[in-house]
């Protein structure tokens, strides 16, 4: 009988670990459906970006208020999780606050710090709920359906979890001295504000409340960890690899299609090297034609909408929204992953670049200005996906807008995007002829 809670705890842990491993496995599989791209170079710069942008939250600080609120939740998340370590040891060993006797006074200080962070997280989550639902922040208010619910759910869950910690500590303090199982820890500042709520309770009721809060918190955290893998909140993990593997070349540089180079070289009679490998497809028609970095980008997107808020096309009422590009990419690769799991043809359903996901109208509206790339706090690159879609339209489907086709023709025949005779190219200099300096 005395081991029952430990067994229950191990069971809960095992179930959570199982689901988590399943989810991580299938997300990893989905990302690996993308095409290979080498990002193993320049690890020094990559680590630097990871430290500045992911750990250091550098790009968040372009907007101060959300940055501070986000920082509190971020630090809270990192630090409070240290406490989870104690939860796990206690849960497995059947002990209570195992670190308290070891750390002594330092333990009291640590728990007080955790409580401060818990309150900071709580305040920030309330502020974020207000921003999402009451204040007129267009990029957040424009979400609807699951993305909107997802954002709110995360904040509500975090608030409840933080309350669970404070309740647990408050009842714990009241039990110290009344029940020998409860170790003397010294007093906790923030939860002591809650103690009046529980003072009239019997010892049994207090133990029940304290245990309930303890279990609630640890099950809550484990459930949350599983939930995160289904949610936009996956960025809490993927922001780190995502910034590490982000593009390092200048924003304006489009990647070169080597398969085209080989062909162009042989057309021009230049030494093309090895004959071109069979090219399956030029550009991207579906999510599997994108690179694994594009797909990881999609899973890293937390749908904050900073990209769309800066997009010139979107600002002037066009359909293009870089956030939607990322959400569509994730939805489609998820669908493909499910197709594969269900034994269906992987490409069943509409391809990524179709009216059901990203339409030609959206693709064509992009000015390639890099505002979305610049705006993303975790180095996501929606532009790269857009340009790959355009390549498919131009080279495989020949479905580019008519005026672009004319421009292509002009470049091909007149060597300029406008239809001027190439012999007129130098006419501007005639004006200067003989003009006195």
């Amino acid at each position, binding site marked *: 009988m005395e081991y029952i809670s430990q067994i229950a705890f191990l069971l809960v842990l095992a179930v959570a670990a199982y689901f988590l491993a399943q989810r991580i496995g299938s997300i990893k599989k989905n990302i690996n459906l993308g095409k290979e791209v080498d990002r193993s170079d320049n690890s020094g710069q990559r680590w630097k970006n990871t430290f500045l942008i992911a750990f250091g939250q550098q790009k968040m600080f372009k907007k101060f208020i959300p940055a501070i609120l986000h920082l509190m939740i971020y630090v809270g998340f990192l630090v409070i999780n240290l406490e989870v370590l104690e939860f796990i040891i206690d849960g497995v060993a059947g002990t209570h606050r195992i670190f308290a006797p070891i750390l002594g006074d330092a333990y009291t200080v640590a728990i007080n710090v955790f409580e401060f962070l818990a309150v900071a997280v709580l305040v920030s989550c309330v502020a974020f709920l207000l921003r999402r639902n009451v204040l007129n922040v267009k990029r957040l208010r424009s979400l609807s359906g699951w993305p909107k619910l997802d954002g709110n759910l995360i904040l509500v869950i975090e608030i409840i979890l933080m309350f669970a910690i404070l309740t647990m500590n408050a009842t714990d303090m009241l039990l110290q001295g009344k029940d020998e199982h409860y170790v003397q820890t010294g007093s906790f500042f923030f939860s002591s504000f809650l103690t009046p709520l529980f003072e009239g309770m019997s010892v049994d009721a207090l133990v029940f409340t304290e245990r309930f809060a303890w279990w609630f918190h640890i099950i809550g955290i484990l459930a949350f960890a599983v939930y995160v893998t289904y949610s936009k909140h996956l960025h809490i993990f993927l922001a780190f690899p995502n910034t590490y593997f982000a593009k390092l070349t*200048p*924003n*304006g*540089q*489009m990647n*070169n*299609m080597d398969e*085209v*180079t080989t062909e162009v070289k042989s057309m*021009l009679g230049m030494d093309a090297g090895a004959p071109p490998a069979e090219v399956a497809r*030029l*550009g991207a028609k579906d999510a599997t034609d994108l690179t694994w970095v594009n797909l990881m980008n999609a899973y890293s997107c937390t749908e904050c909408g900073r990209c769309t808020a*800066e997009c*010139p*096309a979107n*600002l*002037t009422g*066009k*359909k*293009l929204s870089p956030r939607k590009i990322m959400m569509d990419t994730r939805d489609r690769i998820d669908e493909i992953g499910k197709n594969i799991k269900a034994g269906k043809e992987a490409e069943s359903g509409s391809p990524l670049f179709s009216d059901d996901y990203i339409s030609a*109208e959206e693709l064509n*509206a992009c*000015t*390639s*200005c*890099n*505002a979305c790339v*610049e705006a993303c706090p975790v180095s996501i690159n929606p532009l790269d996906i857009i*340009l790959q*879609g*355009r*390549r*498919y339209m*131009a*080279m495989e489907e020949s479905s*580019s807008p008519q*005026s*672009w086709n004319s*421009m*292509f023709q002009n*470049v*091909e025949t007149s*060597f*300029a*995007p406008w239809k*001027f005779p*190439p*012999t*007129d*190219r*130098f*006419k*501007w200099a005639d*004006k*200067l*002829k*003989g*003009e*006195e*300096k």
Partner: protein
Amino acid sequence: MSDSTYKVPTMQEMSAKGEAPEVLFWVGCAGSFDDRYKAVTIAFTKILNKVGINFAVLGPEESCTGDPARRAGNEFLFQMQAMSNIQVLNGYNIKKIVTACPHCFNTIKNEYPELGGNYDVVHHSQFLQGLINEGKVTLKDGGEFKGKKITFHDSCYLGRANGVYEAPRDVIKALDAELVEMKRCKTKGLCCGAGGAQMFKDAEKGNKEINIERTEEALETGAEVIAAGCPFCMTMMGDGVKNKEREHNVKVLDLAELIAKNQGL
């Protein structure tokens, strides 16, 4: 070379004489064919002449860099253009290139190396900044821009694409003008609406044109001059100012034109 008239030597002429220029001026399609931007090409050429820079142009041998084709997705056409340009440039053993078009600048600087074209490429704003810093161009005090409000419209392909924000601003500051910034500038600058090959087709359906949004922002600063450093931005902002019927008191000028005017060229 006689010093009394403006000269625009071509690479062909130079190499026939066995000479090599210090820098190749890549004019670009807009700089060659667009009436408004031809004025910029001429202004920049006059500055190069005045300062005595040993330069040359490709003239009829120049061709589109392929930028609009690549952004619109036509990688084949881009690479065809790029490789024939590289053949010409390498044939003349070109080392340094200056251009007044950020799209040409970006493509030659960042995208040609992978295809075998390696050059030291600068945008004309950087080149002008260098001339001012080295004292080769000394700007006249009390010139026509002294104390005037000038706002600079960042070109995406110069700014966000390549991180060049200060050179154009340094040029404006050297004019003794009052540089006023728009609400969205530098990394947050708003596109003129023409990049990514948008210049060559109508905009998708929306509720506003991008260049109108941007022009409104520029006009809000109260600037008398909207400075640009890109042919597409020049067209878009010029159209915007006309649309707002402000062309009588707001001018859209390129950085080279600002300097040339100050110098009385």
